[in-house]
């Protein structure tokens, strides 16, 4: 530990553009801060004007507030300044005065997770604001937070939040240990953190539920789960999470439960449609003509008759085009994005059929499965399902329906092997707890909630 001192501090920062150092009363008080991290109004109010009016004469009394923190360590001082504190060197003592203030995004509607009913606020990139959104909803001293820091250079703050008495302490401790064990230079987002925490890092499936909606975060806390907040990230992480969490939307709970159940079942249907529909088209057109009803056979033959490629190539081609369109649409600025709609809709939709490159039934099949993939509320899960779908299409192209069911088996076995903080990924199905199926997989009636 090195003694904190004014000259060393200045030397450490070098000639930073935003570094400010001032002295008062013949160098009796010297302050150092970064003006990009400090709120200038509170700085003036709390420090500069008292210093000018010499009200710090009784130093001990004046600094006996939570705003002031007496520090001796040089490293701590540097860290404090970087966190938006003002370092005040007064004789032998060094104080850190917490007056942070920086530009932040206003709390706005979530763009990824929208609801029709229910609250519309969402987290932003500032930890303080995010904590306040949670605190505001849980007015209880049982809400506990553990502050950690990750990243050798970035020193990003990570908060682990749980409700004492509801959450399992063993998982809290485990999460804390695992976050502390992470050795990286920097993390920029919570999605980066969860990949470091994953138990099965090569799986395509996301294992931590992330959300930017405070109402979901709070409902997870009430359910005994633990959430993690990362500074500079609007996404909070949630553990232990299961496969079925990714198919939840808060709208399910804000509607009548019968409607919520129907919508939820629709989402599971969408999951299967996304995974299997295109693959099924490939397999019946290539191998299983017996499965096609006579009346459908006619239109299927009619649309296939001009296509020179086998169904497998045709389907793979169109699926890749859809993925290209989606990726282009996600990255392009909105003004140019409209072009994608026209090019994709008209050129791919009509011209490809007229040119005889694809059949129009396949266009319907591929668009239906693309629409179904967007029904899954979690973007991460929807992306991994779309990737796994290609495995289904390839296997259907090689082995037909046997290939589809073979792949389905492999995927189910893989899902069964996944865990999230020692909690099985598809809990309630495997291991089977039939009584909690209604609760975990679908939704239970509201009146049965305690």
């Amino acid at each position, binding site marked *: 530990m090195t003694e904190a001192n004014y000259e060393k501090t200045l030397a450490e920062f070098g000639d930073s553009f935003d570094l400010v150092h001032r002295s008062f009363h013949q160098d009796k008080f010297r302050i150092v801060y970064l003006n990009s991290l400090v709120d200038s109004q509170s700085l003036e109010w709390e420090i500069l004007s008292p210093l000018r009016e010499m009200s710090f004469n009784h130093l001990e009394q004046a600094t006996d507030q939570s705003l002031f923190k007496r520090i001796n360590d040089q490293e701590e001082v540097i860290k404090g300044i970087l966190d938006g504190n003002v370092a005040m060197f007064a004789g032998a003592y060094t104080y850190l005065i917490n007056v942070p203030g920086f530009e932040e995004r206003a709390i706005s509607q979530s763009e990824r997770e929208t609801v029709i009913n229910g609250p519309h606020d969402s987290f932003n990139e500032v930890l303080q604001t995010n904590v306040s959104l949670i605190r505001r909803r849980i007015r209880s001293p049982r809400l506990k937070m553990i502050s950690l820091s990750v990243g050798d250079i970035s020193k990003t703050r990570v908060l682990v939040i749980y409700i004492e008495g509801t959450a399992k302490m063993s998982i809290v401790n485990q999460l804390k240990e695992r976050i502390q064990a992470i050795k990286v230079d920097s993390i920029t987002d919570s999605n980066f953190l969860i990949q470091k925490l994953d138990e099965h890092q090569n799986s395509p499936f996301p294992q931590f539920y992330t959300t930017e909606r405070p109402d979901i975060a709070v409902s997870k806390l009430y359910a005994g789960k633990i959430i993690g907040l990362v500074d500079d990230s609007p996404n909070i992480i949630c553990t232990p999470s299961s496969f079925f969490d990714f198919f939840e939307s808060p709208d399910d709970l804000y509607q009548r439960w019968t409607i919520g159940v129907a919508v939820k079942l629709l989402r599971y249907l969408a999951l299967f449609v996304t995974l299997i529909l295109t693959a099924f088209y490939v397999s019946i*057109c290539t191998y299983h003509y017996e499965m096609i009803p*006579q009346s459908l*056979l*006619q239109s299927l*033959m*009619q649309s*296939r008759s001009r296509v020179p490629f*086998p169904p497998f190539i045709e389907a793979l081609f169109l699926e890749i085009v859809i993925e290209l369109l989606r990726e282009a649409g996600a990255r392009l600025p909105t003004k140019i994005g409209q072009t994608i709609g026209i090019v994709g809709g008209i050129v791919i939709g009509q011209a490809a059929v007229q040119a005889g490159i694809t059949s129009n039934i396949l266009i319907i099949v591929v668009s239906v499965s693309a629409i179904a993939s967007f029904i899954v509320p979690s973007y991460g899960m929807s992306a991994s399902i779309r990737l796994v779908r290609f495995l289904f299409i390839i296997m259907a192209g090689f082995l*037909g329906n046997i290939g589809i069911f073979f792949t389905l088996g492999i995927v189910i076995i893989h899902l069964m092997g996944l865990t999230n903080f020692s909690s099985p990924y598809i809990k309630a199905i495997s291991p089977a707890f039939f009584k909690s199926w209604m609760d975990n997989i679908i939704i239970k009636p509201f009146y049965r909630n305690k």
Partner: protein
Amino acid sequence: MQSKVIIVITMCCLTVFVAGCGESNAIEKLAVVEAGAYDLSEGSENPITTTVLFPTVTKEGKFDTMALTAKGKSIHDTFLKVQNLTSLKIVGGQGTILFGEDLAKKGLINVVKSLRRDPEIGIRVKFAMVEGNAGKLLEKKFPSIEDNAEFIYLFLERAGWQDKVLFTNQYRFLRDYYDDGIDPVLPVFSYEGDTIGLKGVGTFKGDRYVTLLTFSETQILNYLIGNIKNGRLMIAMNDLEPGQNYQLSLSNINSDNDKIINTKNMQAEIKVKLKASVLEYTGTMDISKEKYQKQLEGQIEKYLTTNSEKLIAKLQQSQSDPIGIGKVVRNHLTYERWKSMNWNKTYSNMSIKVQVKVELTNSGKSI
């Protein structure tokens, strides 16, 4: 870790190589046979003529059907020859199988047996007969019908719901053929004129076609065979009594059928109870009055009894038993006695009576 990688690579290789063992059936390269027709051809060298009908797509991308015909020594011999007529791969999936009149007269069982062995032809494939040449029916283009095979398939499906006796498939044909004491029936189509029409029902003796029953006889046969739910009956009263000349249509019929056998002197009685509502009545009686309703019931009973007995006499004469009286007789006898009996002879000389009881549950509106 290394072993895992090896397993994954092996699996991928297997997937690709195993795929080579399966036969690919891309639908645009297939001719999925919608209907097959089997006829007897002239000449003893190639006795069987097979016609298959399958959907195709023309160059303009329009839907069309194509019929191919080949002569051969057996069913599968003709399949091979038909295959040589087209670039498409001919695969099964027949919905309907038609038999020509001549072939049916000669006996169908050899044809049906080889169709039965073919795994591409399901047990629910519909069977029907054609008056004249069955292949011609598939080949002929009718202005009002786009796809002959589909037409017959849908026709039979609809007719099978309305009249149980017309519900004929491979399973029923073989069951009735192999069962002692009942003979199969098949609907008979004709293709004269501008459309395909149902002519009636052909009854069989064993596997040989013997008589054609007219449409009104078919309706009556329907009620003699078994219990009917929600059936229909069309009666033209003029052919019974000269003074009566009206049309009667009964709908919503629920019938109860009971066959009573006297094994001592070999007499049979079929008791039919009908409950029906009147859909159409062109006569002069005010049938909303109970008296006239009873009178009408009596007339219907008389009509049904006489016509049934006429029909049974016709069947007895041709020794065909689609009603299944033999089955009931067999169930009343010991195995030895049934085996020692010459059933065909007994049947044609047997006295079979019909007793009909009609109850009109509702006479509808009368103005």
